[in-house]
């Protein structure tokens, strides 16, 4: 091997190293990172499957309709507003024709403010929204694993409304009686009038059972008017 060949080999090696230092330039980079975060067994970076990546990313994004409570600004959701706004303002950057099917991408752009993970650091210019989402997901997972013992806040479905609609309450089966220690707290008997009807319709209290002597005295006390 002559010096010229050695120089060419060194130049190639340096280019290869430069390429390795720029993993974003390859299409397999984000997919491998997502696989490394999401799955215990890393998938081969050379064979990414778009059909796998998109559902996985969407699973972490959660495109279900937002509950009413999520419409209000939450402290842990405020960082996700920026990529959402950017994705909504720049819809052309959402399209990823080379690696993702076009259908899921608008869904990510359509409802991103509640589901898009907040990026921990500024995303490199020119990155696609999916890459931004992946990078934010990776960063957030790393931060949560390092600093927060509690799991990262994620949109959870709200519990059922306290007062269901009237129709739902009418059609719902009767709820079981609350019990504590096997004792029914609620009275299972149907509601009864609290006062006798005599007392309700007259101003006089209900007649109490009198002794025979009292009744006889009343009868003997009668006089002609």
């Amino acid at each position, binding site marked *: 091997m002559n010096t010229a060949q050695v120089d060419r080999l060194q130049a190639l090696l340096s280019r290869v190293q430069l390429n390795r230092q720029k993993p974003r330039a390859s299409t397999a980079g984000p997919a491998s990172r997502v696989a490394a975060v999401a799955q215990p067994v890393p998938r081969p970076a050379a064979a990414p499957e778009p059909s796998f990546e998109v559902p996985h990313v969407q699973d972490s994004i959660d495109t279900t309709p937002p509950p009413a409570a999520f419409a209000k600004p939450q402290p842990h959701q405020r960082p996700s507003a920026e990529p959402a706004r950017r994705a909504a303002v720049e819809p052309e950057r959402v399209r990823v024709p080379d690696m993702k099917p076009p259908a899921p991408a608008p869904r990510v752009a359509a409802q991103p403010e509640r589901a898009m993970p907040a990026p921990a650091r500024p995303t490199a210019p020119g990155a696609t929204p999916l890459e931004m989402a992946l990078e934010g997901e990776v960063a957030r997972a790393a931060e949560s694993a390092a600093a927060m013992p509690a799991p990262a806040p994620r949109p959870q479905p709200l519990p059922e409304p306290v007062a269901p609609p009237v129709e739902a309450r009418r059609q719902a089966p009767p709820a079981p009686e609350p019990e504590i220690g096997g004792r029914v707290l609620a009275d299972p008997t149907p509601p009864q009038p609290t006062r006798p009807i005599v007392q309700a319709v007259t101003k006089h209290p209900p007649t109490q*059972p*009198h*002794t*025979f*002597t009292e*009744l*006889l005295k*009343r*009868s*003997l*006390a*009668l*006089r*002609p*008017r």
Partner: protein
Amino acid sequence: MNETSFDPGGFFQFDLAQGNVRSRGGTRVLMLSEGALAPLIQTAVASGDLTAVRTLGGQLGTIVASSLPGPVSSLTSAQIIAHAGAAMALFGWGRLRLEQWGDALVLQVDGLPPLDSDNLAVAALLGGLFSTISGTEVACVPLARSTKYMMVDPGVAEQVWIWSREGDNLATISSKLRAAGER
């Protein structure tokens, strides 16, 4: 709940050897048919003296009072009527019930043979019975065309009797009466 705790068992003791019948308490009784008793009662009514029938009622009252589970002042009207009715039934004086019309107590006796046209004999019997039970003089005024008797003070009995003879029904008579303290 059985209001009738009156025990009729062994109430009459028949001594066939001596030819006598005694009721509980030792009182000797004579058994009469209704055909024999009715003329006697009609005679007493005609003479205006039903003291004997009232005395019989007093004796029944003594039997009732001795069988009561407690003092009369502590018992309900249902308990009193149950015991009094049992005693009357033992002597064959029909079935006794009690009604209340306002403040007036009204007795009803069913199942009696016709003794006198105005039911004065039964009125005398009931008067003696409940006077003994309650310890107060009670007049049981028969109401015309019925088998009911209103329990009133003896001083009011004549007026009630007149109203009844004039055709006033029980409701009208009750409305014509007022309590002593009522204006």
